[in-house]
């Protein structure tokens, strides 16, 4: 029994659905046509700007052009829901959705593609107020001193250098200074390892050798003077 009633429902539904297009077909022959009006806020009022801006309805199905005062008219469109866009090569405008019902009532709303049921009413006649210049280009990176200084490589090299050179001078505490000096003194007292080994193997001290060298050099220079 349930099954039966269900079938009837389907039949009825399909009947309605079939009859709907017929009704549409009849209304289409003497459909009403409507005009959409509005204004566009212009960044500047030059006439060439007016000429390069057009208003598109549903991706160009109908177009409107700007008059000198920034107003436009899209004439003779059938009822329905349309997206109205302002097309300008240099500026971007927010599009507006316009709905004209079969009785000729207008409603303008914010375009919301994701939640089409969400209505955010806008004034009609349309007002395209919010515009911004389109940013088509990226700005090139330019060489700056600050960029160079804050480079991580430079920072890792410069900061330790600072730590070594500047920090000790900043320390004014006399005790620590003394300690530091002691540390450096200690270093000086330590005999150099390599020198110790060489003296151990050769038998004479490195200072004596140096003096020998010096005398040799003086002799040779004297010789060269004679030659001259």
């Amino acid at each position: 029994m349930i099954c039966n009633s269900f079938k009837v429902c389907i039949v009825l539904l399909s009947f309605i659905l079939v009859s709907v297009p017929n009704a549409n077909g009849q209304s289409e022959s003497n459909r009403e046509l409507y005009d959409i009006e509005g204004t566009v806020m212009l960044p500047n009022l030059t006439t060439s700007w007016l000429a390069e801006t057009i208003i598109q309805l549903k991706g160009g199905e109908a177009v409107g052009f700007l008059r000198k005062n920034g107003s436009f008219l899209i004439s003779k469109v059938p009822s329905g829901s349309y997206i109205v866009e302002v097309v300008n090569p240099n500026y971007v405008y927010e599009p507006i959705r316009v709905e004209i019902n079969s009785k000729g009532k207008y409603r303008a709303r914010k375009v919301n593609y994701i939640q089409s049921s969400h209505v955010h009413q806008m004034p009609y006649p349309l007002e395209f107020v919010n515009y911004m210049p389109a940013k088509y280009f990226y700005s090139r990176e330019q060489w700056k001193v600050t960029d160079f200084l804050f480079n991580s490589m430079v920072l890792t090299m410069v900061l330790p250098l600072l730590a070594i050179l500047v920090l000790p001078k900043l320390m004014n505490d006399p005790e620590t200074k003394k300690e530091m000096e002691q540390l450096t003194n200690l270093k000086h007292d330590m005999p150099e390892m390599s020198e110790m080994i060489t003296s151990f193997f050769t038998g004479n001290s490195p200072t004596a050798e140096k003096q020998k060298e010096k005398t040799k050099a003086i002799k040779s220079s004297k010789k060269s003077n004679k030659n001259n």
Partner: protein
Amino acid sequence: MVSKIILTVLLCSVLFTVNGLYEDQAGKFDWKQNYVGEVKFSSIDVDVTTKRLYVATEKNVVASLAIETGDIIWRQILEKGPEGSIELIHPTKSKIITVSGVDVIKVRGWDVKDGYLHFEWSTETSNVLYLFVFNGLLHNVYSSNNLIAIDTYHLETGVKGKATYTFPAHWFNGFDRCALSSGSLACFDVAGQLNIGSLIKSNTDRLSLDMIGDKIVAIPGSPIPAFIVTNTNVEKLVYVKENKVQVRSLTTRSSSFIYTYMADRHILLQISSPMQDTIVTEGSILEDSTVIESLSSKESKSSLKISNPRISSAFCGRSKANTVNCVTLVSTQDQSLMLLKMPGSIKWHREESLTNIINVELVDLPVSDIEAAIEKEFGNKESGAFSMFVRRLFSQLQQLRTLFATVLGIIESPSETTGTKSNLVRDQFGLHKIIVAVTSAGKLFGIDNLNGEILWSVLLCGVGTFYENKVNGLPSAPMHLQRNSKHLSYSPMCTLLLKSEDSENTVMFTFNPINGESKNGVTQLPYRVVQAVPLPVLNIESVRSLILFDSTNSPHLYPANTPLSSKPPPMYIYIANPTNGLLQGFTVDVLISGKVISAKEVWKTQFNKPTQIIAIGSRDAMEHVHSQGRVLSDRSVLYKYINPNMVAILTLAPDTTHKSVLTLHLLDAVSGIIIYSVVHKRASHPIHLIHSENWLLCSYYNDKTRRTEIASYELYDGNQLSNSSDFSSVGGSLIPPIVEKQAYILPGFLQAMKPTITEKGITSKHILMATTTGHLLEVPWAFLDPRRPLGEPKEEGAIPYIPELPMPSESMINYNKSLMRVDGIYTTPSSLESTCLVFVYGLDLFYTRVAPSKTFDVLKEDFDYLVIIIVTTILLISAYVTKNLASQKALKQAWK
């Protein structure tokens, strides 16, 4: 949620830095040419301060051109299609008024100087026969209830004039038997009489004249009622003056134009073109046939390729030497527009047929002669060492000789001797190519891709209207590059298939795409080609032969009877007939001798009415897929389903519940198996389909949610490759692929869509989309990936799913060079893996190149050569200086 958005924004910013331009790059490797289209009506503004031309064109464009140069000063684009077709233009002192539309007539007044709108009004009508303007009133002639009725409107305000007045219906009997000129309707009646009646006043008598004719046409823009009557190739000029009909016979077959010279005198200007490169003008007084010497001229120009010129508008004046001078705007059948000065010459010339490009190919240029000689030398491998040495010496001697010759200027430089422009040689990166464009006017163009200069043009004779592509209703002209420029001993070869002028059969035009020269011209084929498929192997003359499939399903090979270099594998061909919805697959065997064995039908699929095939998408034959799979987060590989035989078929069927249903079928063209099908309800035009690698994109307008949606599909084999070595449609497993799918919202409307293509397919893919707002958008495929995760991202680098696609202005690669009325986008790889060349055609031509993964294989444009030079020199100098310093120090130490 917030974190997700932030993440996406971050990812967007990262990904979008990949494409886009820097400001200094604008115009560096892109160019745009603006056109207006084939001129329908025109008017010359003689005002000294303005000096302009106003044109209304077949492309629904009204524009102003500079008389001196032919440059566009302003241009306005009206509605697309018949709604915006311009029916007449009427110039006034400060405005240019256009009347456009079919059922809704829109009257718009444009500012002559800047082109902005002064006024607009519209009215609804039906059954319009003619529209004309008289006395500042727009006359709308229409048929209603067996009467010819005329409504008048004030042209600038739209206020309806006095009551409608009518004429008997028998005054009008068909557009081919009647013509309207200057408010007078001339018609042939059954008795063989020509009746001319004025439609301006309500009660007028008709003037009759005994005359038999086949055809009657009005002289456009004539100040007095004037008609050309053709009767078996004899042309007569019929005009009405002071309420009397005058007949003047015309001797030459030419196009005429009448200009009011003095109050009671008119000049008859005639123009003809006996040959493609010649233009002949004649001028005479209409009333007494006195020839005006200064207006008769004949001019030949080798670069000119025109047919059937027609004077669109003219202006005449008397010069100081008391001769008559005229300036005429001439439009031709091949859709070019020129300004002719009489006496004098052609001042400028515009090729407006470039607005009707139907097929494009970017062809590589040949290498320079010197390089060719080197290639030849090393190409010959089988010769011995001694002969190689001799040849090397010989070629070097030749190089030396050409060098001396060019230095001394004895002979022309080697590249100039080839007959074309000197710089037409291939560059290192394959960025310099030639754009070969076929236009619906039957004219072929060779355009330099670097600057947009037209290098050659060919006007085809004996070619009828083009075959209509039944899928999209546009004219089609299949063009195949049969031999590219890489074969040194042969010149490149391109073949175009067109419809014959006097039958349904096909004509073939084989030409050299580098210079447009053809050996045999247009050749007639004894059959109609329905499908042309290139063979996978070349023949011994390095030509990629074409299998031409005729309407009786028998194959032919072109060029015929030339042996092939190797035995081709069995060929599978499919044919789609959108009129009866029949899809057929055939197998064709081609022998190595170059003979074709007849085709065998393999499979057949029928789409019954009212289902209609609206688009067929197959992969670009040049495309390579570099990576076979995708690495998932668990380090396993998801293999791509790459079936080279797969075609996508889109069908649209009306539906009672869902208005229209769009179905996508993925079909294997070899076996005929439908791999996958998917349905979109309430989808309607505009519909675009692209098919590349293992994915498909289909854009449509969703009537329910009233937005443009892009459905994305991706096919995967799974964790194992089913066809590991080569793909086979018949062998292997018949496990259907895994289909990933997702839909995205595009906040806008699409005009055309195309994926980028690169030589090896390593570079990531971007989708180029031309929107109706005139932007060319470059969208990374990662945004359209159906595997964009809905929840937390599972794969590295995956962007979380967001229904709306971003359209940042930085990714609009044509910046403020808006592209309206785009017909198509053509992409082709360059020799650089990173770079893809893009050519967009439609009302405007736009060329650019894109690097989807940035130019990773060449140094960046902003690479700082100066810094690197400075750093290296400083290093060198400092190394030298410190070396010296070190030695000095060593010396000083030695002295201690």
